[in-house]
């Protein structure tokens, strides 16, 4: 399996998953780049216990969460360094969201972004990527029951946040 073949087969999957985490094109492209660079380095050592798709899903999830943590750290310290500039990408600019749904979707994503990492991942994979609990269990290396519990907790937390915001 070459990098080119891997990219041809899985780029759209990786890019769209990254988009669900960062909701804008420049950041999603940067994560996609990092994912395929990491995959290229480890291609020889790839253990065929799961297929390439599952393996890439895992790398994408880890790279996306690392990216978000780094961005959060940068924002926290921008007060001291004045690094936050006009050149930073627009927060919500998801190319997969239709104009008529943009406002509502942006609001939901704002709440999803506040969820704990594992709940956020389970919800994204289940509700947006439309994966089954068994598939998500394979990716997250959990039992299907544990995944179901994470999705349920995510929905409950979202419900609370929406309820609080509506007063």
């Amino acid at each position: 399996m070459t990098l080119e073949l891997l990219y041809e087969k899985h780029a759209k999957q990786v890019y769209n998953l990254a988009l669900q985490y960062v909701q804008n094109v420049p950041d999603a492209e940067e994560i996609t780049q990092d994912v395929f660079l990491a995959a290229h380095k480890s291609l020889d050592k790839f253990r065929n216990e799961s297929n390439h798709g599952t393996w890439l899903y895992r790398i994408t999830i880890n790279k996306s969460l690392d990216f978000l943590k780094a961005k959060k750290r940068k924002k926290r310290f921008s007060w001291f360094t004045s690094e936050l500039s006009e050149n930073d990408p627009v927060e919500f600019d998801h190319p997969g969201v239709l104009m008529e749904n943009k406002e509502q979707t942006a609001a939901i994503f704002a709440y999803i972004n506040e969820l704990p990492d594992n709940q956020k991942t389970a919800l994204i994979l289940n509700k947006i990527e439309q994966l089954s609990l068994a598939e998500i269990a394979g990716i997250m290396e959990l039992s299907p029951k544990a995944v179901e519990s994470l999705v349920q907790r995510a929905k409950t937390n979202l419900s609370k946040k929406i309820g609080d915001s509506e007063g």
Partner: protein
Amino acid sequence: MKKDQLQVLEKIERAEVSPFLFTRIQAKVQEQLLDRLTAKQTVVYLAGIVAVIVLNILVLRSANTPEKPDDLVSGMNLSPSNQLYR
């Protein structure tokens, strides 16, 4: 959680990847390969310099060892006598 609020997530469509992204990835792969080669070259050059220094030290140490006069005479095939004519 109202069902319709979450349903908006199911309406998200698959976005297309930029056609230039793979070119950027390939460029990064080349860049990383070049960095690795440069690191290997550096190690080889350093190993060469160390080898030259060690050889020099060994040569200097053997040069500084004082030789016995008899060893010098036999080693250089010299005559022990200062008589030029027999």
